[in-house]
């Protein structure tokens, strides 16, 4: 079922009662989650992504705007009538119940013509448990399981009632690095197998990029960009989106456009056809550097980190306040003992942003 948010706004009253003005957690959200897709809400902490999730599931009521599931307006429906499954960040498994009891709990609440017989319930529970591969742990208590297993139980409990929309709040943040990789694949698989429209919240861009069909990048309650992960990565609309996505992060230089040419500290580095003159932020992806003896961009070389598959060149440049990290193939030879390193740039890995508004300035290449 597709989920449509129209002008969705949530303003919380300020905790400091002297300040009348509320805190805007979600600011005029407009977007549509297509049916059966996995969507990642991505943003730094405190950007309102969990609030957005709570609005969709109904635990919070919006200050303004409407929420549609399919064609039905669910804004005024209580959470229990919306048909959503929610997996909490801390899983919120009932500690006194076994895995089986936990998963069965939502089914036992069904009333009227939805009411299931004992056998049907048992079967549904078994199915859900199989889906998340915990059917061998049915009689354990949550405290006797690892974080990853608890996570699976939480997902099973959310999907057992066959919700139209599944919501996951920071599903991987309580897991260790290895388990995180594994579990995110699991989430992807479960979503594919069930076909449930799924929204998950994360502050980890890698997590969002790796499994989402669509990512929504947000900051301070506002949506900055919506799109397929690769599209958003390759074509960010502003400096924030560009810096937020990608590890290592994009390298940001100060520079200038003059006569359709791009200058960094006076050196001409790239032709930028169609860009108007003026000061700009230049974002260069780590993979956008080509080491070249007489390349236009010369940086002070700090070191080369060999990571097997490729190497990371660490350097500094007066126009860039942070350390520059560039990823290059191990085959390209760089003199590690040299004082400087020179690069030429891949034009499609270079993004220009307005110095004031930080909006993207496009150019032809």
């Amino acid at each position, binding site marked *: 079922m597709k989920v449509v948010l129209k002008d969705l706004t949530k303003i919380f009253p300020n905790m400091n009662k002297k300040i009348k003005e509320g805190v805007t957690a979600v600011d005029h959200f407009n977007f549509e989650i297509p049916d059966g897709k996995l969507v990642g809400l991505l943003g730094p902490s405190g950007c309102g992504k969990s609030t957005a999730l709570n609005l969709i*599931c109904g*635990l919070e009521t919006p200050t303004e705007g409407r929420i549609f599931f399919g064609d039905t307006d669910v804004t005024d429906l209580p959470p229990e009538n919306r048909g959503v499954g929610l997996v*909490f960040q801390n899983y*919120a498994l*009932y500690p*006194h119940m076994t895995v089986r009891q936990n998963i069965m*709990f939502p089914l036992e*609440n069904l009333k009227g013509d939805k009411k299931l017989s004992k056998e049907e319930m048992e079967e549904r529970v078994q199915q859900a448990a199989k889906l998340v591969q915990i059917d061998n742990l049915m009689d354990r208590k949550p*405290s006797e399981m690892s974080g990853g297993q608890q996570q699976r139980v939480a997902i099973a409990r959310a999907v057992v009632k066959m919700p139209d929309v599944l919501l996951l709040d920071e599903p991987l943040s309580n897991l260790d690095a290895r388990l995180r990789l594994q579990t995110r694949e699991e989430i992807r698989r479960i979503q594919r197998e069930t076909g449930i429209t799924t929204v998950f919240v994360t502050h980890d861009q890698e997590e969002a990029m790796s499994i989402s069909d669509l990512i929504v990048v947000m900051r301070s309650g506002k949506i900055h960009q919506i799109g397929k992960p690769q599209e958003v990565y390759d074509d960010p609309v502003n400096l924030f989106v560009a810096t937020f996505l990608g590890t290592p992060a994009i390298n940001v230089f100060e520079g200038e456009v003059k006569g359709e040419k791009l200058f960094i500290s006076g050196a001409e580095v790239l032709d930028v056809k169609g860009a108007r003159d003026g000061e700009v932020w230049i974002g260069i992806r780590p993979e956008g550097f080509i080491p070249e003896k007489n390349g236009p961009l010369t940086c002070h070389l700090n070191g080369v980190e060999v990571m097997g598959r490729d190497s990371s060149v660490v350097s500094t440049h007066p126009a860039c306040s942070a350390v520059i990290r560039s990823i290059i193939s191990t085959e390209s030879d760089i003199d590690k003992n040299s004082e400087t390193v020179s690069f030429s740039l891949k034009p499609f890995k270079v993004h220009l942003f307005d110095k004031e508004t930080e909006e993207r300035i496009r150019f032809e290449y």
Partner: protein
Amino acid sequence: MKKNNLKGWLYLLPALLFLISFMVYPLIDVLVYSAEEGYNSASQIFFGYGLYNYSYVLHDPYFLQALKNTFILVIITVPLSTGFALLISLALNSIQKLKDFFQTVFFLPYVTNTLAVGLVFMILFKKTPYSEGLVNLLIFWFGGQSVDFIDGPYWAKMFVLCFYTIWVVLPFKVLILTSALASVNKDYYNVAKLDATPRWRVFTRITLPMISPMIFYLVITGFIGAFKAYSDAVALFGTDLNSAGMNTIVGYVYDMLYGNSGGYPSYASAAALILFAIVLTITCINLMVSRDNVQY
């Protein structure tokens, strides 16, 4: 090594001295007293050792009365006070406005002086030449017969004692249970809400199990406290509890030591040990039941 051990014991010495002289020695002394037959506290002599003291106490009508009173008190007040406390804390937890105010109101009896409380209960229940007592006025109002709650029939006196006990122990239980309820993670309720869980089921399947350790704590301490009841009865019926027929086991022990019939430490010790055995048994049963029911 040996030297270090000595040093350790030296550090423990002050505490050990206190514990031994005020806890261990009296305990042993009570055991010894309870077995000394025909002990005379004036001449400090006795005839021999045996179980006669126990048999005397167990056949003493005053002790049997005290035993009956204590048991009735325990059986009525422990479940009722815990139940009321649970209801009150649930109510307190579900209101927004005036929550702090009501919390303070329910906690007031805990910090109120026993004498003041006794005075209030006098006004409520005591029949004097000048007044019938507030409760009797109410009974008249509804067309009932006046009852003397302080010097009247047994059930009326027992009612007042239970009422008083529940009222006195309630604040502490409310305090414990409100904080237990508040500490239950809100996410559990949100999950339950999303799953359309009916309120009663949320209470029985989530809230109760989550606070069950606290409830069992209150029941166990409640049992022990009620078995040791004495001052409440004195506050209501005065020191001559035997003639009022409202004595408790601890009251009986006290009377045997210092009361009008006092001077019998052997009987007192025997009674105290019987009480100890009862409390120990009940607590063990409680712990066993709670181990089966509190599982996480």
